[in-house]
């Protein structure tokens, strides 16, 4: 069976090495593209629709996590099955600890041939079982399974929380108050967590939105996630965390994308849900 793969790695020698190792372990695998930054990784993945993606985590432009997120969202599931995702990284404080046990979707640099062999075996199995399954049930089950795997992988690599996944680090007590600056930036407001409807990451800030106000904090989203009660706040997008009980309605647009209306927020403000988190909103 020939399979295709894309390698996204910004260090040329390492990309070349991974390619060479793969050629040894999996001669039938065809590397359709090797790219050096996250933006190109997304555009090439969507253009070539390979079976396997090897993504470096630290890349210029857009990091591996962001690139994976964008690929997941824009992947044309009716044209090709969702690809298998493998992260490649030199050192990652989150994943190394949390993920070492079953981390075959996670390859450490320098690439250890034994480890890579296991990864290759798993990929081959996954691709083989996908082929007949895809005939029988074209989308639902296989897609769900792949999406769940991507979610786990992104959560492990990014240190974020996934509903139902065991926390990676002992969680501190959930925040009760958020010390945020107002729009002008001259005053620090103590915002009770009960008033917050959603958080949205924007560049270097996180916007904290209540029913009628907006504040800014500087904590990275993945750090904030560890301090929120995962039952109360749901991540629905790489950059957005919403209060679950504030969700009023979920709409599906013509392109099949989900959007949320929140109680207490203006009706024209619609919050995107990425494909990776769409399973939260399936009708019961």
């Amino acid at each position, binding site marked *: 069976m020939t399979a295709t793969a894309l390698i996204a790695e910004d*260090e*040329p*020698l*390492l990309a*070349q090495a991974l390619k060479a190792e793969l050629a040894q372990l999996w001669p039938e695998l065809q590397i359709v593209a090797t790219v050096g930054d996250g933006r190109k990784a997304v555009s090439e993945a969507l253009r070539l629709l390979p079976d396997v993606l090897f993504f470096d985590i630290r890349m210029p432009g857009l990091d591996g996590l962001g690139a994976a997120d964008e690929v997941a969202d824009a992947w044309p599931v009716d044209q090709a099955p969702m690809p298998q995702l493998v992260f490649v990284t*030199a*050192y990652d404080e989150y994943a190394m600890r949390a993920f070492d046990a079953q981390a075959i979707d996670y390859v450490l*640099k*320098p690439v250890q041939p034994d480890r890579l062999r296991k990864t290759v075996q798993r990929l081959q199995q996954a691709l083989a079982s996908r082929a007949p399954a895809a005939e029988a049930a074209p989308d639902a089950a296989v897609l769900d399974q792949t999406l769940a795997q991507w979610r786990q992988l992104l959560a492990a690599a990014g240190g974020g929380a996934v509903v139902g996944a065991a926390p990676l680090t002992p969680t501190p007590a959930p925040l009760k108050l958020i010390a945020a600056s107002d729009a002008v930036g001259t005053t620090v407001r103590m915002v009770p967590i009960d008033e917050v409807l959603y958080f949205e990451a924007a560049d270097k800030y996180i916007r904290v939105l209540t029913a009628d106000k907006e504040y800014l904090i500087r904590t990275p989203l993945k750090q904030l996630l560890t301090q929120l009660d995962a039952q109360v706040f749901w991540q629905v997008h790489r950059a957005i965390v919403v209060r679950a009980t504030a969700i009023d309605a979920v709409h599906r647009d013509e392109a099949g994308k989900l959007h949320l209306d929140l109680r207490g927020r203006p009706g024209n403000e619609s919050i995107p849900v990425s494909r990776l988190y769409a399973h939260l909103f399936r009708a019961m």
Partner: protein
Amino acid sequence: MKINWRDVARHYLMVVAFCCVIAVLTTLIWPRRSYLVQFGYAMSVGTITWLVIEFGRYLVDERNCHRDSTGGHGWPKGWRGLVLTAAGIAAGFMLGDRLGDTLWGDGISPSPRDNGISLVITIAAGALASFFFHARGKAASLIAERNAAERDASEAKLKLLETQLEPHMLFNTLANLRVLIATDPTRAIAMLDRLNSYLRVTLSGSRVASHPLAAEFDRLGDYLELMSVRMGDRLRYTLELPAELRDVPVPPLLLQPLVENAIRHGLEPKVEGGEIVVRARRDGDVLTIEVRDTGVGLVDAPPSNGSGFGVAQVRERLTAAHGARGGLQLAPDAHSGTRAVVTFPVPA
């Protein structure tokens, strides 16, 4: 309030030992009473004095007390300690003597002169013992303070080392080296030599006060060469050091954090990469070293730029070496990128 009963028992044992000595003294003064009776009196006075002082200090607000060796409630500070001692001695003299009479008394009422002597002995003994405990407590709290300071210092050192030996950089370099060993052994050896001298200086950097600017530039060269193996043609660099400035002494790896920042925050996030220029020049008696990059610049950085650990560390070291005349300015460069300028005085 938490009482450390082990300490209490230890203190009381010392009081008992002290009373033995006092009883020897009083037996010499009043030979008509036996040593045991004298010891009984001394213990009565000593125990009451000790009880008042040992537990009385808990009545003093903790904020006005020294820490004991484990950070607990220690000896009251300043006049409070003196008042407590005086109170203990007064109680010991008034109650302790009476207690002694009740327990061991032989019905002989003491002469006023005896009373005077025993007052003097009680005050002297009480003051001496209190001073002894006070001095011991103070020594313990000094030791605790010194331990805490040592801990802070080693934490800071560890943090510095961690920033210099960033694991991501180290493992990526090793990964590249592994590739080169198979494909280009000559380049692999060159890279290993660079890594070797980079590690040597990083690990021993904090132990020498200064090295020549030429050595500093060589180390920057090692680091940049390692990085350019990794980044390929995304990194170009130039190091410019005029011959007459080669021997100017600088703190080791002073410039390292600036070059690391230029790569990490400037060029690494930029898809097409860019160029780093490090240039030293002399203006009269001021040496100026400039680190310029054509990276993404300060625009994308959080507004709090310049307070990062690396930059703060460079500033601190400049101030330590040259006081107010050493400085570091960070500014956006003309078109894109960042320009860091270090200045300090050099003898003409």
